[in-house]
């Protein structure tokens, strides 16, 4: 069981005896790196620090040396007067404390040192920024493009404000044939190309296997197929419209991404969300977590042909979604979280029924767990399959159940708690083995933990309004939000333009850091176990590609 999980009530950050962010900034000072504290209240979950672009790589090196995690990197086009200016940002975390590095690239400066040599997790994000903004990261280990296929050319940069939303597309965008995959050569080595269209009911992406016999020698992912220009089409939207778009960043994480976007907007606009709405948001997020984990557990079992569990868990998921529909009006809970609160109240009858539902689901799970645990043919396929070592998970910055199955006991709901989690007990699950079985067991434990959370939230549900009046923020107001979605930490950055409309929206799904883990954990496994390993990680294609 979860020997590593230490339930504790989250402490406000001011009680930290040792502040890793202060320690890092002191180190910057000792190394002669000039820093400026910036003072945007909307960025408050992180400590915003302005540095010179030339120090971009050096700060990453020092942060890596101090054991920080790279939690996301993006850029913004902040104007063309007198010349193009860009703002590069990257977020770093240690012990639940966040620092947001910011560097302004002025006067047609287009280069800054890469952070990827010290943080492998930064690799794809920096390539993405390069493709979308035309910023070059000096010293980056991989010169290949990432986000761009063939829908725009190498000298077009869609996230620059001067680039038209409609772009200059061809009648038919050609396939991306020229991408240079890594080649493995030698006697008996062969390649298997898979995708973008997969055999099941799943999202598109390309996997390139190099195999010897049945054993996977190497796997390379090529994503970006479902890039829909979410960041670009967010520009100019009002808050309600942005929330709807955020709810479709990744359909299975509709509550998580909408909550993150709304929190970022609320921080920027200094809107206080009513208590009752916060509690309902927590209930919605935990219901989303449980629904997805039920689906995943069934799907993992299905991938090793244990049909009994597949049907049982899809039955539980269906009943759970039907309750979503009757209590909140939508099976997947889309558009229930809105700027300033929630769109749908929870009636007292529904709250009472939900309390009964929690007991019902717990009983079902108690019955099913020993059946899974005692089934040798199931465990034989899951145990030791797709092992992700803790060191690899840390280096890549893995999140959520993928990290927690590899011994990384990090959960925003406890370690950087936000309302309503700051007033209740959260028990993150944690396992050490890092295999498919561990990722299944973490999910199982997390369902129990979420049932415990919903029960506490239902008890603390007070009376009152469910939505605050919106207040139009000043032009340039920024917001940063961190939310523990069902896949793990979601980061969301928002900057408002004039008239209260969105100028920049960047949602960072946890899949960004979990997809690279799949490339590592598949090593040495057999090709037929790939669907199983893939399902156990279950990255979002849409949430990654945006």
């Amino acid at each position, binding site marked *: 069981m979860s020997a590593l999980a230490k339930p504790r009530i989250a402490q406000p950050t001011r009680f930290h005896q040792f502040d890793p962010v202060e320690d890092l900034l002191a180190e910057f000072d000792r190394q002669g790196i000039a820093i400026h504290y910036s003072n945007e209240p909307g960025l408050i979950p992180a400590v915003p620090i302005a540095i010179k672009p030339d120090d971009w790589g050096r700060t990453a090196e020092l942060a890596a040396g101090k054991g920080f995690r790279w939690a996301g990197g993006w850029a913004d086009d902040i104007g063309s007067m007198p010349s193009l200016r860009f703002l590069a940002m990257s977020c770093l975390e240690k012990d639940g404390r966040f620092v947001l590095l910011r560097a302004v690239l002025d006067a047609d400066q287009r280069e800054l040192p890469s952070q990827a040599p010290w943080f492998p997790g930064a690799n794809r994000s920096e390539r993405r920024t390069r493709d979308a903004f035309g910023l070059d990261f000096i010293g980056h280990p991989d010169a290949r493009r990432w986000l761009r296929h063939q829908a725009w050319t190498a000298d077009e940069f869609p996230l620059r404000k001067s680039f038209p939303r409609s772009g200059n597309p061809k009648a038919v965008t050609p396939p991306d044939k020229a991408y240079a995959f890594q080649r493995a050569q030698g006697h008996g080595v062969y390649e298997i190309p898979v995708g973008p269209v997969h055999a099941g009911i799943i999202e598109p992406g390309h996997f390139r296997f190099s195999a010897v016999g049945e054993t996977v020698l190497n796997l390379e992912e090529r994503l970006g*197929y479902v890039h829909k220009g979410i960041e670009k089409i967010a520009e100019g939207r009002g808050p309600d419209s942005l929330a709807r778009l955020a709810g*479709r960043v990744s359909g299975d994480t509709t509550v998580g991404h909408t909550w993150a976007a709304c929190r970022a907007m609320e921080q920027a606009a200094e809107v206080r969300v009513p208590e009752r709405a916060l509690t309902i948001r927590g209930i919605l997020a935990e219901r989303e977590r449980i629904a997805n984990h039920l689906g995943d557990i069934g799907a993992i079992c299905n991938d090793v042909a244990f049909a009994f569990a597949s049907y*049982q868990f899809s039955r539980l998921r269906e009943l759970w979604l039907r309750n979503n529909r009757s209590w909140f009006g939508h099976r997947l809970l889309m558009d229930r979280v809105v700027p300033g609160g929630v769109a749908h109240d929870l009636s007292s009858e529904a709250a009472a029924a939900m309390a009964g539902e929690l007991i019902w689901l717990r009983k079902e799970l108690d019955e099913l767990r020993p059946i899974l645990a005692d089934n040798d043919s199931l465990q034989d396929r899951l145990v030791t399959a797709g092992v992700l070592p803790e060191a690899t998970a840390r280096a890549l910055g893995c999140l959520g159940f993928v990290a927690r199955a590899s011994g990384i006991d990090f959960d925003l709901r406890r370690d950087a708690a936000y309302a309503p989690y700051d007033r209740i007990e959260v028990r993150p699950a944690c396992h050490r083995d890092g295999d498919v079985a561990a990722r299944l067991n973490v999910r199982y434990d997390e369902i129990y933990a979420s049932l415990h959370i919903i029960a506490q939230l239902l008890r603390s549900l007070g009376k009152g309004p469910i939505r605050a009046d919106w207040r139009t923020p000043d032009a340039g107001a920024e917001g940063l939000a961190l939310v523990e979605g069902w896949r793990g930490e979601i980061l969301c950055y928002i900057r408002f333009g004039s008239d209260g409309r969105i100028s920049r929206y960047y949602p960072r799904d946890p899949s960004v850091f979990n997809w690279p883990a799949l490339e590592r954990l598949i090593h040495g496994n057999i090709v037929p176990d790939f669907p199983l390993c893939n399902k156990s990680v279950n990255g979002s294609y849409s949430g990654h590609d945006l």
Partner: protein
Amino acid sequence: MLRIFEKIYRVGVVTEPAKAYTDPELEAIGAELKTAIDRRFSGSLGIRMVDAGSCNGCELEIHALNNAFYDLERFGVHFVASPRHADILLVTGPVSRHMQHALLTVYEAAPDPKWVVAVGTCAADGGEFGESYASCGPVGNVVPVDAVIRGCPPAPKDLLGGLLSLLAAR
């Protein structure tokens, strides 16, 4: 092992008759469905699902059609792994430009006669995403569409109803 049998016995059959979640009109269509599939497709209708750029919400609900409550296979409908085995293409999402060529390839690979069903609001009219440098908009902008099932996402019963209507109308 006994525990498995005990659980199966106690849960019983949860599959719902079509009338439990459809209106009378749909019930009538439901009665005709099996006949239509039996007659036109020798009792077996193959569906190939293509995500051409969706947020994955539609996929979750299409997946649900296979759970024990809806049990799509009882009508002779099954999801196939290759477009070459398909009678119907279910296409979700606005078609991203990066998926445009792949969707055209799948369309060409499916044997005639074939029907394309655009599933979800995005596939129907572009939804929240519309047309842009990255998105071709609705499925109809890329391949000919024979039927549309709206919803964000359409619930399993809407999907079932949409499929039944398509077959009944042809």
